[in-house]
């Protein structure tokens, strides 16, 4: 089934931290962490921060004092920056391969079938050097005959000091050594539950897993488990997926910067999410058939008045006009809102997406449809040029999410106390050089 005979997984090392360091070279050997949206948890750590014992996903408040003591540099997540740097990395990588799959914001699979085996390692180093040189982002490269093994090789490329961040597995002996060196819980596609179960059966290393009978794996770990097993044995089951298939639902939601009680504040947040979501919808040339809005208080606060609700409506005809989506979303919100509660999150989901080209022209509503279509394409062009803040609806309020100063931000906006500058996406955010 697979046509690629050699895969490389290129993974950016501590990607978010590396992005921050490109513009702050003085942080090179300093412990650095990046926090999740709303400054909640640690989501990226430099190796110095890992060495301090800071775990992935730790709530910020739990390690705040320790990090201050240890002089850990803390950043709020700057997705604008990470998104642009990721684009640059992908763009640099795409000159090394005819086929590339963007697997996540910091990982790409590359098709290296065109190389001869003896060329692979040097090529991996060239990829690494070029990406670091052009973008400032350090990457590691794992190469093997299946995606699962490439992923495993990538892990070892980071771990084995002598690999210098590039590891290619060619021979069965090299593969066996790599499998013996990797624990089963680190195998791509093996979740925590399966790992626990396997370890109870004394299946500890990836090598142990690769020796398991196919029948047992299929029975106990389903088809995806079987696929993993075969890939560990060097039999490719998954090919590159160069295009991300358009999604069937899209969602935009955020927790608020602090709990909100007023409908007006929540409406500001929801309308902003709606515009973002509708923009995503149009970018993939789809229309939504249904709209869901959800609203919730803190589910874990026992003392508080807990309330979670969601409402969905089916649209009379599929649309991607944000005017229509906005009025539907606002209507749903007003129906759901109960005064006297402290809300922490609102979001919108656009359901059952269909390609815009397949939407039947409706004889009676068509006039509005054409007008909206033109208006939306104008809005998209303007926003692409001047940013999302440039054109807003009154209901979105007049605060700008890009403002960092506390008093300029609306209460629903995310907390980003440690946000770095959008160095590559805004003229105002550029590096300033005292020559």
């Amino acid at each position, binding site marked *: 089934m697979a046509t690629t005979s050699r895969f490389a997984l290129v993974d950016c090392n501590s990607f978010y931290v590396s992005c921050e360091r490109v513009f702050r070279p003085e942080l090179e050997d300093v412990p650095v962490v990046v926090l999740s949206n709303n400054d909640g948890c640690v989501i990226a750590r430099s190796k110095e921060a890992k060495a301090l014992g800071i775990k992935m996903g730790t709530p910020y408040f739990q390690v705040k004092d320790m990090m201050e003591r240890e002089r850990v540099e803390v950043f709020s997540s700057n997705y604008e920056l990470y998104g642009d740097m990721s684009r640059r990395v992908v763009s640099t990588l*795409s000159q090394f391969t005819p086929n590339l799959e963007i697997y996540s914001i910091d990982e790409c699979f590359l098709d290296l079938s065109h190389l001869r085996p003896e060329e692979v390692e040097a090529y991996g180093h060239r990829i690494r050097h070029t990406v670091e040189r052009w973008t400032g982002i350090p990457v590691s490269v794992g190469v093997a005959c299946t995606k699962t093994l490439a992923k495993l090789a990538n892990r070892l490329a980071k771990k084995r000091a002598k690999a210098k961040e590039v590891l290619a597995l060619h021979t069965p002996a090299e593969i066996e050594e790599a499998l013996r060196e990797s624990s089963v819980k680190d195998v791509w596609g093996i979740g925590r539950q399966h790992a626990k179960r396997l370890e109870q059966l004394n299946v500890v290393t990836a090598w142990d897993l690769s020796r398991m009978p196919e029948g047992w794996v299929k029975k106990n770990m389903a088809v995806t488990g079987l696929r993993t097993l075969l890939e560990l044995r060097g039999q490719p089951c998954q090919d590159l997926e160069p295009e991300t298939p358009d999604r069937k639902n899209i969602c935009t939601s955020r927790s608020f910067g602090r709990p909100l009680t007023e409908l007006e504040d929540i409406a500001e947040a929801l309308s902003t999410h709606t515009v973002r979501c509708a923009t995503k919808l149009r970018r993939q040339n789809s229309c939504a058939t249904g709209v869901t809005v959800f609203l919730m208080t803190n589910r874990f606060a026992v003392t508080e008045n807990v309330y979670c609700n969601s409402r969905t409506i089916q649209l009379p005809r599929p649309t991607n006009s944000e005017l229509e989506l906005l009025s539907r979303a606002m209507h749903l919100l007003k129906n759901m809102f109960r005064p006297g509660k402290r809300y922490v999150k609102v979001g919108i989901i656009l359901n059952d997406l269909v390609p815009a080209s397949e939407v039947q022209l409706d004889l009676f509503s068509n006039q509005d449809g054409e007008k909206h279509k033109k208006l939306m394409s104008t809005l998209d062009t303007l926003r692409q040029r001047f940013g999302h803040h440039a054109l807003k609806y009154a209901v979105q309020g007049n605060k700008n999410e890009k403002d960092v100063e506390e008093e300029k931000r609306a209460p629903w906006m995310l907390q980003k106390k440690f946000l770095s500058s959008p160095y590559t996406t805004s003229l105002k955010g550029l590096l300033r050089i005292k020559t």
Partner: protein
Amino acid sequence: MKAEVILIDRPDVMQLHDMTAHRLELFSSAVQAGFPSPAADYDAEPIDLNAYITQNPTATFLARVEGDSMIGAHIEPGDLVVIDRSLQATSGRIVLAFVAGEFTIKRLMQKPDGAYLEPENPKYESIRITQADMGRIWGVVVGIVKKV
């Protein structure tokens, strides 16, 4: 009736398109009642300043100038400098360097006794890069953008 098509180019490494949205105007002369446009077969893309300023947008970054140590090279406060990270920093080129905890723009000069970062303003002194780890070149300055 003039049909207008807006084409947004896909970012692509070796092409120079990913910094601007190009507009390509198509005149649909077929549906028009009058004469077909004589320019219809010659439509070309508008001039792209990005392509003029940098060869490699993927590796190109902008920075804002705040000091006056390079005014002799016409790099003045308020200017934007265009920096290409993919180029080799050879002797004589203006570079963005990171030295002693700060970014600085200077001319790199390789001399028999070592590498120097030289200002272009008599008020400032050259920096001699002594140890390998004391300074590093971040990128090569390939252009200056000024507003007049």
